[in-house]
């Protein structure tokens, strides 16, 4: 059994490596990622496609298909409900079955494909409770109904018997949240939970997640590409690029004082609501694209797209995450100057 000294930490990922075997060689989708998520805290992992953020969340749940994928190194320390700490990277599948959907709840992007179309939503939420909490049918139904009410589904006693296709996207995502939280997980992993939703529905769901966290104290690992959503929901943020965390910190510190050129670029390239056509300033696009995970550049992985790169950035070894202010780290050798 592993140990975690800080009793407030729910999840501690240390130097995680997840690799995929491909025709073009080994793809290091996650290449040395470390972060922690505490009780009552939302950590947002933000990045573009190919950054490795979703593979990180799938690795945590041990849902990486193998082969071609495998966890090649590192630790995923998770504190169970009974206080014991386990390294999920090496946990047997029998233990993962007890944890998944029970102590770790999951919400995925696409609300239609994560629900089974041939069962009513009540049956699907009830199944989780019967399996993990050993409730009988009537008790599971009563608990499912309570969950549907908690996530704000109107006329829940009628809708509990509906099928997923009878519901709108926003309602389905509420059902998924109800299902994910049914067993009172200590950790909720939400992978782009609002990306497929309209903004007015997204606002409802984020509001719901905030309220539920305040009630239950659940730790949330929130995966997204949307910095606007991050600012709304996160307490802390880890910015991922090309399989690594390039900057991590408290949400206010990271948004107000971003130190890594990639984080700065991401923030600068989004138009703000107040920025009109008259504004002569162009959007500051980051040139180029994310490097292929099978052919990453040496040195700093962001250097080829970085306006501040110097020869040393590509020739010297990749910089480590350095403390730039309390609780805020960045992986850039030039963070002091820029």
């Amino acid at each position, binding site marked *: 059994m592993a140990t975690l000294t800080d009793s407030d930490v729910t999840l501690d990922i240390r130097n995680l490596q997840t690799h995929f075997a491909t025709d073009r060689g080994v793809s290091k989708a996650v290449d040395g990622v470390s972060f922690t998520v505490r009780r009552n805290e939302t950590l947002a992992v933000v990045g573009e496609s190919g950054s490795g953020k979703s593979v990180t969340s799938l690795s945590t749940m041990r849902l990486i298909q193998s082969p071609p994928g495998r966890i090649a190194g590192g630790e995923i320390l998770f504190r169970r409900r009974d206080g014991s700490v386990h390294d999920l990277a090496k946990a047997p599948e029998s233990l993962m079955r007890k944890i998944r959907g029970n102590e770790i709840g999951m919400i995925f992007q696409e609300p239609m494909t994560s629900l089974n179309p041939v069962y009513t939503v009540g049956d699907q939420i009830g199944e989780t409770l019967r399996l993990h909490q050993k409730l009988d049918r009537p008790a599971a139904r009563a608990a499912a109904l309570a969950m549907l009410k908690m996530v704000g589904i109107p006329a829940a006693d009628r809708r509990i018997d509906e099928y997923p296709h009878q519901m709108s996207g926003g309602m389905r995502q509420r059902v998924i949240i109800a299902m994910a939280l049914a067993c009172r997980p200590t950790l909720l992993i939400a992978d782009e939970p609002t990306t497929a939703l309209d903004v007015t529905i997204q606002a409802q769901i984020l509001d719901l997640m905030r309220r539920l966290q305040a009630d239950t104290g659940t730790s949330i690992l929130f995966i997204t590409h949307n910095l606007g959503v991050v*600012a709304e929901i996160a307490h802390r943020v880890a910015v991922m690029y090309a399989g690594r965390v390039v900057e991590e910190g408290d949400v206010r510190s990271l948004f107000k004082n971003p130190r890594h050129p990639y984080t700065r670029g991401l923030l600068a390239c*989004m*138009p703000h609501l107040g920025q009109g056509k*008259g504004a002569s300033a162009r959007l500051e696009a980051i040139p180029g694209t994310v490097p292929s995970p099978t052919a990453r550049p040496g040195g700093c992985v962001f250097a080829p797209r970085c306006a501040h790169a110097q020869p040393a950035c590509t020739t010297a070894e990749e910089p480590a995450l350095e403390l730039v202010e309390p609780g805020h780290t960045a992986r850039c050798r030039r963070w002091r100057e820029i």
Partner: protein
Amino acid sequence: MTNAEPLLRIRNLQKRFPIRGGLLQRPVAWVNAVDDLSLDIHRGEVVGLVGESGSGKTTAGRSILRLLEPTAGSIRFDGQEITGLSKDAMRAQRRRMQIVFQDPYASLDPRQRVRDVIGEALDIHGIGTKEDRRDRIAALLHKVGLTADAMDRFPHEFSGGQRQRIGIARALAVEPDFIVADEPVSALDVSVQAQVVNLLRDLQQELGLAVLFIAHDLAVVRYISDRVAVMYLGRMMEIAPSESLYDRPRHPYTLALLSAAPTPDPDAPRNRVLLDGDIPSPMNPPSGCVFRTRCPFALPACAEPAARAMREVAPGHHVACIRDDIPAPASAVV
């Protein structure tokens, strides 16, 4: 800009889709995807069209180009009514009206080299000669920020942002006056979005294009548009010059949409107008104002047919709401 006949003049455009059922697959109901849409787009003007899924914005864009046949209404392009035109006559018009699609992965034929993707448009419209074809394509690729050697490659060899550049080059190949850009950046990563938005803005200004820019991202729309129209459940709720719409939205739906947009600033005030529920079924829209079932400011009179009328509340600022006391964004509270 307001006196001249606009390049595009749309009046009372309607597009209905049948819902078929029963043994004979007869229409059993109708969906009004676009209902009573009127809009002018002037030469060189960018009009943003925003709304959530199901608002009818994509159907509107396609009906205007007659990629979908409108059910009723009038579309005049450069003074000519195009709704009744034959296929051949319409093809000639299409040279002047083009579209850029949302998904750069689905909108390019994977078996065509880039030079054929773009060359096809030139062939159909009989533009240029065989000899100058290569130069023409190279110039187009250069214009969208790609190099000439891209022309001999296949779409799968390009990233999403590069593919969208190819889609833009294809649309521009026939030198159109008007482009419908249907969510052109929403499938792209944020860092690449900015590249493509900058490109579209530069090309629009350089070529004096009129653009209908369809999107759900309000910040991107404001950045590129002169005027913005907001649609909900097939109907236009509000249209105004960008500044006026964003600074002082008059329709409760616009207000809700603006307040729901997440801002990348953890200290931004969150004066949310949280809407209850979802968009109603377009098969059975509410009477009167279609937004009234979710509107926090609805009155009994909103159910009357008169509540659908557009009225001008400030110069060029039209709104389909009967109330004048909708709060300004800063003072709107949850």
